[in-house]
């Protein structure tokens, strides 16, 4: 059941692509001074401008996930039984920013309503092989393909303990393998897990690094099911939505996986059969499996004789990195919590300052103290947003990669398993030959034919498994390099985004204090 993927250009093009991706992301953010460097779009069907899908749009800025505002797509909405977006408004707090369309009139607006705290829109270029982004000046494009995916509009379906969340998965693409250019479907969490299971069944054994979906969370989901609409459950939903989106991005940026019909079906098909076996399987479950398999591999009696150290060294690197990222994640987690602390303390202090200002009998000083209270209030908001950025840009990235590195380890283990299978086949063949020899000597011609047949069979198997092993070696090498490049790019993009969020925060801080300064100077 091996599908031959269509020929892909070599890696240079992809490198060029990823560099440009960064440039795009950089340009993009220069514009977003007013909304805190976050490309948060507001919109629902009624409000956003209709998107004209022409060549220019396809190369509009990073982070423009053109919502499905085309009339044709709206019909698809209706047929998908999507609820009107107006219902969403109540579920989520404001925190919506309308992006000023000053870059170009065709700048797409992403159809997203975000709760607060919301994940900043990480401009994620999903890379298909043929996709490359040109610089903004060049608007003409012919043979480039684009694929943008967004996961939005979490909705609760049902009541009580049987309730579940459904997410809207919107795709906009020029890839010919899809039935249309823009479409969306509703998926629930177990659908994502189902996709993962199918993909890992098919591809993990060939040495591919299959991206891991977000973890199941009984606690988080229970709160949502029970209908608790407090910040922690909205936070949880947002965290999950963002994680599911990142998951899909990683899947489609993998050339081989994108070609898998299951992926296409996931994105396109209106109704998916309910994935039942995922009830126990999840990212965490899979990781447990990986670790068990690892242990099994380590216990294997025949140690692999490596002809070159590349695999051993790489695996060691991967294990070290996983450890480091785990540590880093813990530290960033602490940072998030401390910042939340700071946020709370600042709010309390602001109130206290306001009280003090009221009590102060010198008028000018009283006013200044009240102003100070207001500045501190604004600082609290800044801290709150920064904590959210700390989390969504930084912490979640690290969490993702800790899991992904587990997946990488798995593909190394698969290689060893493949090798083992080849070795086992060789020893079986050897045994069969011995049997044949014995039969020859014992002169039992009837059993001899059977023995010869078996030898032929096993000779074929040995050849097959040897080829499998060579193939998986090549795949693992390629995969690891691809992964490393993607990781490096991912980290760079995210670090830049994070620093930019800090930058914007500092700039706002300056504004607040500069506004306060004359008030302080006016005290007499």
């Amino acid at each position, binding site marked *: 059941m091996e599908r031959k993927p269509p020929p892909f250009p070599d890696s240079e093009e992809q490198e060029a692509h990823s560099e440009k991706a960064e440039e795009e992301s950089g340009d993009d953010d220069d514009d977003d001074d007013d909304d805190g460097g976050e490309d948060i779009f507001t919109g629902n069907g009624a409000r956003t401008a209709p998107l004209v899908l022409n060549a220019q749009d396809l190369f509009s800025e990073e982070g423009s996930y053109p919502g499905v505002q085309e009339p044709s797509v709206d019909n698809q909405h209706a047929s998908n039984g999507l609820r009107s977006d107006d219902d969403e408004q109540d579920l989520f707090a404001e925190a919506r920013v309308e992006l000023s369309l000053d870059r170009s009139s065709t700048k797409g607006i992403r159809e997203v309503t975000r709760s607060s705290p919301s994940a900043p829109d990480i401009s994620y270029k999903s890379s298909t092989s043929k996709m490359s982004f040109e610089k903004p000046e060049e608007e003409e494009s012919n043979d480039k393909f684009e694929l943008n995916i967004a996961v939005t509009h979490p909705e609760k379906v049902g009541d009580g303990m049987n309730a579940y969340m459904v997410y809207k998965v919107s795709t906009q693409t020029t890839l010919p393998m899809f039935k249309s250019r823009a479409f969306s479907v509703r998926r629930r969490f177990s659908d994502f897990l189902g996709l993962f299971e199918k993909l890992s069944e098919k591809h993990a054994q060939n040495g591919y690094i299959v991206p891991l979906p977000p973890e199941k969370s009984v606690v988080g989901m229970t709160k949502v099911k029970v209908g608790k609409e407090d910040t922690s459950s909205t936070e949880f939903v947002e965290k999950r939505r963002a994680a599911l989106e990142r998951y899909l991005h990683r899947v489609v940026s993998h050339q081989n996986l994108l070609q898998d019909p299951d992926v296409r079906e996931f994105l396109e098909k209106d109704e998916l059969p309910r994935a039942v076996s995922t009830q126990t399987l999840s990212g965490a479950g899979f990781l447990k499996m990986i670790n068990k398999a690892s242990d099994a591999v380590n216990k294997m009696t025949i140690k692999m004789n490596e002809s070159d150290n590349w695999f051993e060294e790489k695996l060691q690197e991967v294990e070290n990195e996983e450890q480091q990222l785990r540590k880093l994640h813990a530290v960033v987690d602490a*940072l998030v919590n401390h*910042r939340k602390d700071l946020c709370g303390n600042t709010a309390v*202090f602001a109130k206290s300052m306001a009280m003090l200002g009221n009590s102060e009998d010198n008028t000018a000083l009283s006013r200044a103290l009240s102003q100070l209270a207001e500045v501190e209030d604004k600082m609290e908001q800044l801290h709150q947003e920064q904590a959210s950025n700390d989390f969504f840009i930084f912490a979640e990235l690290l969490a993702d990669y800790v899991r992904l590195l587990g997946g990488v380890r798995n593909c190394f283990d698969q290689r060893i398993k493949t090798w083992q299978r080849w070795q086992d086949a060789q020893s079986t063949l050897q045994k069969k030959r011995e049997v044949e020899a014995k039969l020859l000597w014992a002169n039992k011609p009837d059993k001899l034919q059977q023995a010869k047949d078996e030898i032929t069979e096993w000779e074929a198997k040995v050849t097959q498994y040897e080829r499998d092993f060579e193939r998986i070696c090549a795949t693992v090498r390629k995969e690891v390099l691809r992964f490393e490049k993607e990781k490096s790019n991912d*980290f760079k993009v995210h670090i*830049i985004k994070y620093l930019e969020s800090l930058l914007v925060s500092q700039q706002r801080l300056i504004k607040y*204090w500069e506004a306060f300064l004359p008030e302080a100077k006016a005290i*007499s």
Partner: protein
Amino acid sequence: MIIFVCVVFQLRSVSVDLNNDVSLLIDIPDALCERDKVKFTVHTKTTLSVFQKPEFSVPRQHEDFIWLHDTLVETEEYAGLIIPPAPPKPDFESPREKMHKLGEGEATMTKEEYTKMKQELEAEYLAVFKKTVQVHEVFLQRLSSHPVLSKDRNFQIFLEYDQDLSVRRKNAKEMFGGFFKNMVKSADEVLISGVKEVDDFFEQEKTFLLDYSTKIKDSTTKAERMTRAHKNVADDYIHVAAILNSISAEENTALKNFTFLQKVEGRVASDQELKLTELLRYYTRDIQAAKDLLYRRARALADYENSNKALDKARLKSKDVAQAEDNQRQCMQKFEKLSESGKKELTSFKGRRVVAFRKNLVEMAELEIKHAKNSVSLLQGCIETLKNC
């Protein structure tokens, strides 16, 4: 055992320049910190003939300052004055505890991380040290710039006496036993609010000070928590930077910027502490000193009223009238003297407070802007580098 020698310069954050009367200039040019004890060098330059030399220095401990303060408080003559609040005891508890924890956790962190954390803690120690020197210095300078208190004999002894003051301290304790002070502490709220006020000015002051005192105490606590939380965030960046540095070399260059982030955040936190929290702390104590004045006056008023009642009774009974009249006159005089000087003191206190707040708020705002601008340019450079590499 940590020994710090600190040369202190121009750290007058909570008070306006007090040290500008040439006839008596006081400062604490350096101090030594040995274990728990801090030894301050009190340096005096004077043109007054009451002193034996025009310039001299003496070593003093914190307890000596407390002795001086208490002696002043218990001097009847100064009842109508706001006695500058005693400097708080030097408190190295927080950095010491952190240093201890750091030592325990040394094994779990990289050498670089450990060094950075240690540097941070040493800076914290130094900051506490500087603050305590400053607050002791300001105490003396407020005394020296006060027309009445600067002439106090004990003050002069404090400045000049080149022997150990501990003998005097012990004697003083035995003499007064802290009696008056304790009374003040327990009874003042009740008495101040209980006494019927005749003077509008004092009525207003009473209302204001009682309310303000609670509010400022609250603000101080909240400010302390806020600046502490800020420091925690800054310190986290150290850990982040340390681990990032040990990961991939590619991202290394740009990620080293977390170290500078920490520096800036750390500075913001400590400036905030110095300008805002310290300001609030100081004025919480100063307001208390003002309240103490009100208390003493209220007490004098109570005595005066009682003496009036006693006089009336005596006149009714025609017994001990002269004595009662005498007593009444004394109480009245005392009360009026207290009221007059109290009014002056409270008015100048108001002015002083407003000026100090203005100075500190302006400075704090300016520092926040400066640090933020610094951050902005560093972040921009950082982002540029990352994008181009």
